[in-house]
């Protein structure tokens, strides 16, 4: 199994989950730079880390040619490598986000990989006052020309995956998870929760259904281990108002008038009080976004017993 984007917290959690399953013979984790400390303790017979630049076709291709995988080739690829941070966005970031998905998918198809999973985001959905109480996979996408470029990158990368979903030999999946809270992850929602204090617009309290790092890792594991392809939402167990989730964690937000939210966020970032970027999904704190993951529930979670029974 190849996991691209090994530096992400969710990757570390997923790798730990997968290594508990003895049916997984070996995991190749790929990231830029040195192996993250959290991954150093894994059994070297079942885990290896390799540094590669994924926007280089040759380097991606080489990942499938390791001697370790000559007899038993890689059969599953998980693409988690995505740079969503809008700070310092430029063309190289775009090339990394979009080309990495393309190269990895092309190489997977060429080398006979049976399953390719791309971890997208709920940021691809359009948000506004016309919102549905639950957003299904066929909901309107955020194709607004003014949307952040990194969101457009995710949609571009998704389109590559969707173009190959008819492949008979490889199950291509796109997973769109709800915001992750806790675990130190770099999701927008978690960065908001980690702010001191979180700044919210006056008079708005959107509905959300966040997930956790552990639940998301378990869901990705199900998606990898059970048969299925297509686009799926992955959500947390229960929806509720944003402030309710803050209250549960003992966090008191600060309120500012809606038009001043971005300026307040910018000031907070300058003062080091937050790493949250209000520009990334400017409407997220105003309007509800609750993912409908009924399809994932039916296709994967309800069949989870098949996984444990082998």
């Amino acid at each position, binding site marked *: 199994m190849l996991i691209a984007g090994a530096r992400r917290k969710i990757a570390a959690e997923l790798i730990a989950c997968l290594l508990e399953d003895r049916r997984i013979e070996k995991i190749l984790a790929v990231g830029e730079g040195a192996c993250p400390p959290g991954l150093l303790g894994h059994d070297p017979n079942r885990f290896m880390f390799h540094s590669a630049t994924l926007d280089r076709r040759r380097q991606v291709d080489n990942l499938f040619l390791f001697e370790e995988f000559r007899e038993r080739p890689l059969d599953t690829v998980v693409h988690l490598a995505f740079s969503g941070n809008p700070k310092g966005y430029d063309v190289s970031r775009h090339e990394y986000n979009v080309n990495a998905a393309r190269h990895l998918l092309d190489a997977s198809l060429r080398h006979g990989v049976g399953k390719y999973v791309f971890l997208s985001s709920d940021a691809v959905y359009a948000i506004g006052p016309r*919102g549905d109480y639950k957003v299904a996979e066929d909901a309107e996408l955020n194709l607004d020309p003014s949307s952040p470029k990194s969101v457009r990158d995710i949609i571009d990368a998704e389109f590559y995956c969707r173009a190959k979903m008819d492949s008979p030999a490889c199950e291509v999946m796109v997973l769109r998870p709800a915001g992750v809270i806790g675990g130190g992850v770099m999701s927008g929602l978690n960065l908001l929760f980690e702010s001191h204090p979180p700044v919210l*617009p006056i008079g708005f309290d959107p509905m959300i259904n966040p997930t956790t790092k552990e639940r998301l890792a378990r869901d990705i594991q199900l998606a990898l281990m059970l048969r299925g392809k297509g686009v799926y939402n992955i959500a947390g167990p229960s*929806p509720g*108002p944003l402030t309710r989730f803050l209250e549960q964690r003992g966090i008191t937000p600060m309120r500012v008038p809606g038009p001043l939210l971005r300026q307040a966020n910018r000031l907070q970032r300058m003062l080091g009080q937050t790493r949250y970027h209000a520009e990334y999904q400017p409407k997220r704190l105003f309007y*509800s976004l*609750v993912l409908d993951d009924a399809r994932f529930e039916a296709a994967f979670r309800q069949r989870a017993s098949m996984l444990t029974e082998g």
Partner: protein
Amino acid sequence: MLRPDLMQALLPARERERIEAYALDDAGAGTDVFGTSATGIGNAYALAYWLHRYYFRVVSTGHENIPLSRGGVVVGNHSGVLPFDGVMISTDVFRHTDPPRLVRFMVDFFVYSMPYLGTLFRSLGQVPGTRRNFDGLIEEGHLVGIFPEGADALGKPAEDRYELFPFSHGHVELAARHGAPVVPFGVVGAEEQQTVITNLQPLARALNLPFIPVTRTFPWFGPAGLLPKPVRYFIHYGEPLEIDPAVLESIEVRATEVERVRDAVREQIRVGLEHRRLVNEGRA
């Protein structure tokens, strides 16, 4: 903040029991999947009950036509500048059904872009008027309220009182798709709570609002000028209409069914006007 326990303490005991009897399907964070909260409903009912009983002194009949368990579409006329007619319908149905049922109206989108208002409406069970929201409500067995004249009808000028605007077609199509009955209702009284002289449409368009009325009291008395006069409401619910499933296949059948619903609403208005006349004459 108003304390829910104090708000609800103002209600008679049997009405508090009614709030407690309302079965909210808690999704895990204190609200249902639509964002409706028990506290929101309780507080709203605590206020709306007094408006219903003592301010608008609502007289209503035909509650036996409201489905007690299954989903349904409640359709009627709209007027009065501020949507107190919707509030009174929800309150009336809540008061006169056992177990209490909440009518969840499909609300114009602009409400949800306004601070506090959108959050308030959502916590009271009122959702943005999208097809998916309608589907979700009906599938979960809720009563869905629709004003097919649209929000524009709130700004109906005085000379058009009790004249129905053209109905949108969505409600019959959605009702047919789900096999849900359409319960027509007529509200009499809301049209007199404000006297609309004209509608400042260019300004409304510029501000992305459905209308900006000029009434006998607004804008002369500021926002207070939008408050309704204490007119008596007469609400009548008609027999449920089963919509011909052919509306999903034929535009002509759809137009015919929309007209049938419109005629049924018009009939309930006629009954309400007659009822009011008799009451005013001291004969009812």
